[in-house]
């Protein structure tokens, strides 16, 4: 009886402990430019986003950015260079710590940018040594009357830290 109880206790403890141990451990806190406890090299880098609306005024934009290779985490989003887009744009906070984000902003004022401007900066944490590749898709570029305008979007990766 006593032996059976001990066996039962061992089985129950194993059922509790093993699944906990089997779960993937949370990633360790990383510091810039050094290896974390798992030996993964991490660096931080800004990704500057530019939109060129030509001779049209840019009253609203929306784009989606995601990493198609490499391993990144989005750690922050910053506004752009022009006064109309200096405020941080709209984005889903759930995108932080992920590799995909939708960013959008608009401005109803009369002072709107034309030509090529930096409209946002996305701050990334790059995990590992593989250089990430990104896919960026401009879904909205609109003039002050709300109509879509032809525009191009480009990104430039800033200096890694």
């Amino acid at each position: 009886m006593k032996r059976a109880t001990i066996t039962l206790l061992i089985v129950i403890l194993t059922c509790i402990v093993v699944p906990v141990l089997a779960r993937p451990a949370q990633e360790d806190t990383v510091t810039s430019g050094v290896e974390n406890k798992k030996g993964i090299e991490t660096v931080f880098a800004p990704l500057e986003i530019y939109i060129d609306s030509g001779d049209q005024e840019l009253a609203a934009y929306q784009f989606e950015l995601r990493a198609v290779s490499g391993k990144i985490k989005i750690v922050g989003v910053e506004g752009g260079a022009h006064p109309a887009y200096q405020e941080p744009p709209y984005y889903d906070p759930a995108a932080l710590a992920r590799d995909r984000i939708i960013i959008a902003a608009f401005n109803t004022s009369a002072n709107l940018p034309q030509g090529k401007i930096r409209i946002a900066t996305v701050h990334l944490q790059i995990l590992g040594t593989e250089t990430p590749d990104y896919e960026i898709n401009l879904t909205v570029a609109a003039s002050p009357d709300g109509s879509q305008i032809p525009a191009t979007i480009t990104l430039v990766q800033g200096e890694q830290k």
Partner: protein
Amino acid sequence: MTKADKNDNNILFQVSDQLPHDLKDLFQPDSSVSPQMDWAILDRAQQQLQHQARSKRRWLPWVVSVASAAAVVAILLNLDFSPVPAPVDQSAHPISPVLAATDIDYSGRVDILDAFTLARHLETSSQPDTRWDVNNDGLVNNRDVDYVAMAAVRLEKGVL
């Protein structure tokens, strides 16, 4: 009581002092154990202890096996074997009422142009359309604009 009866009683209580010693010698267990018996008892005890130890060792593999099996079952139960959901065919599903409410320009999708349209409407209209109280706070204001904009950038948008 007669004189003869009194004499009989006196006889009954007159026993020898040797009687207790004799009785003790007669019924006391023999405490002396021969060395052979001693060795036999020790040998038997050792055999019993070894048997118990063997029994414990015999149980150990069973306990480990059962525990391992239980662990495997527990791991399997914790793993998610649910099939990956197929991509939602948006045309086959009705538009969510909540998302539809944020489709301000009725374009069929929620994007920043909806927030832009609502913001322009608020700037130009003295009495905003109450249909655009998308956050249901009883007011149509910039909070509704923010609500629509956040719906536009949400990663999991649902069907719109």
